[in-house]
């Protein structure tokens, strides 16, 4: 299958955002991974949604990479799954929210905020979504350093 559609999108992005497009990968047909720098993250999303009409956000993934936390937005459009990845430093995990561009991102960003502690600037409501109210502040279960404690026995034998 020709991947010209994918390649032309990559060229498009590289022409527009130049060095801010850090890495592109085409592991198989209909799958495209693009790493961008945080400075142009919002503009790349805007370009995809407004110019290319890629309006369907499948989901957003947060991933702990040790020094950094990566936020991946998986879009489907133009007949392929486009993943835009952006890395933020772990000491200050902040990134602009894309809810104003893609209203469907509202719960995905809240989920990442909840489980990985990334703050999305400009998000309308970053309240807890999946963790319980009595979950300790500042503990993020999907970070790699969080270890699952085995449940305590009901009584000592």
């Amino acid at each position: 299958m020709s991947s010209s559609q994918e390649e032309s999108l990559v060229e498009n992005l590289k022409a527009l955002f130049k060095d801010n497009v850090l890495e592109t990968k085409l592991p198989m047909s209909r799958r495209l991974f693009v790493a961008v720098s945080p400075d142009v993250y919002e503009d790349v999303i805007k370009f995809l949604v407004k110019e290319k009409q890629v309006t369907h956000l499948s989901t957003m993934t947060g991933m702990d990479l040790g020094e950094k936390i990566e936020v991946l937005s998986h879009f489907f459009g133009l007949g392929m799954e486009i993943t835009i990845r952006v890395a933020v430093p772990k000491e200050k995990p902040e990134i602009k929210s894309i809810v104003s561009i893609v209203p469907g991102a509202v719960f995905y960003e809240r989920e990442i905020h909840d489980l990985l502690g990334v703050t999305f600037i400009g998000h309308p409501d970053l309240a807890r979504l999946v963790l319980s109210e009595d979950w300790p502040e500042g503990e993020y279960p999907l970070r790699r350093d969080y270890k699952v404690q085995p449940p305590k026995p009901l009584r000592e034998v």
Partner: protein
Amino acid sequence: MSSFIIPIGPQHPALKEPEHFTFFVDGEYVTDVKVRIGYMHRGIEKAMEDRTYNQGIYLASRICICTEAHTTCFVQNVEYAMDLKPPRRAEFIRVILCELNRLQSHMLWIGAGGHEIGFDTLFMYLWRDRERVLDILELITGNRITYAMMAVGGVRRDITSDMIAKIQKAMDIVEERAKYYKKVVLSEQSIMARTIGIGTLTPREALELCSVGPILRASGIKSDVRADDPYAAYDETPFNVITYDGCDVYSRFLVRVDEMFESINIIRYCLDHMPQDPIRIKLVKVAPEGEAVSRVEAPRGELIHYLMGKGDVKPYRYKIRAPTLGILPSLVRMLTSRENYVVKIGDIPAIVGGIDPCFCCTDRAVKFIDVSKGKTWSCSYDELNKYANRRYRKVG
């Protein structure tokens, strides 16, 4: 603005699964809604990181009732990451199982949808006929719900020729019944009165809020992962993407009823065209460093899994997004009165039930807040359901 706040949930907002809704109401009209999920958060993504790929399949199959969609998505994702290609026969068997799973899920929902609007006869009929499909699944896999049929690089059991005859016979019966249900849905006044014009979601809103599956298709948008991003044997299986443009709960009924016929036809096609192949290839344990995204059309819509491997027997990160989370923003919109479309308290069961929610499984209350009086009152979902049925009986 004045309104009254009604909490619904966390248990049993619809279909006996826990989620918490807070409804802001002004008199009889819902003006705003807030959703709180997580009552069934089991940390499966974290647990995946501690399991090998082979163990992960069985964890994935326990995510929810769309067990076949989750396991297919999982094994596909691992195959993408390992660059494996399962034998063609295995891909056909995957399609048959996914469609049988869709068939039983749609039958479950049409029955439960009938129950939500106080039409329990439909519920009893559908759930009786659903047993036919479950019997077939039991015949093939040995289980009624968690099938555990998928394996990395193929499937675990074959479909033999005497099974084929039995499946075909069951499909004929189910098709006959589905025709009858379509007639019921098209002619029954009690369904129409409770669903036409209820839970409106315009095509523009559906696209904007990234809605998925039957909800999107009932808003007239032709979108189906099976057609747009074909996986397994869907690339050669002919089928129609069903759309209706009513944008309401009634259209969602019709989409699901029509998809039953499509599923039956896909199963028949696959039974006739399965090649003679082995059913799986040798297991590879380690995924090389890299990532993969796999998408599957689950009964409730697009299901997406993301896998990051670091050259280990276990994934470094595994992300799952089930269809209901994708539908939630649309559900919030459907439940909010806007412009000349109003949502009444009595419509809540039909709308929440109408998305076929799957929050995976239990039962409690709804909270209503009156913004004008600042008063709060709670009621259980059963009470709300009875209230809605009573009200509509009065209206006639």
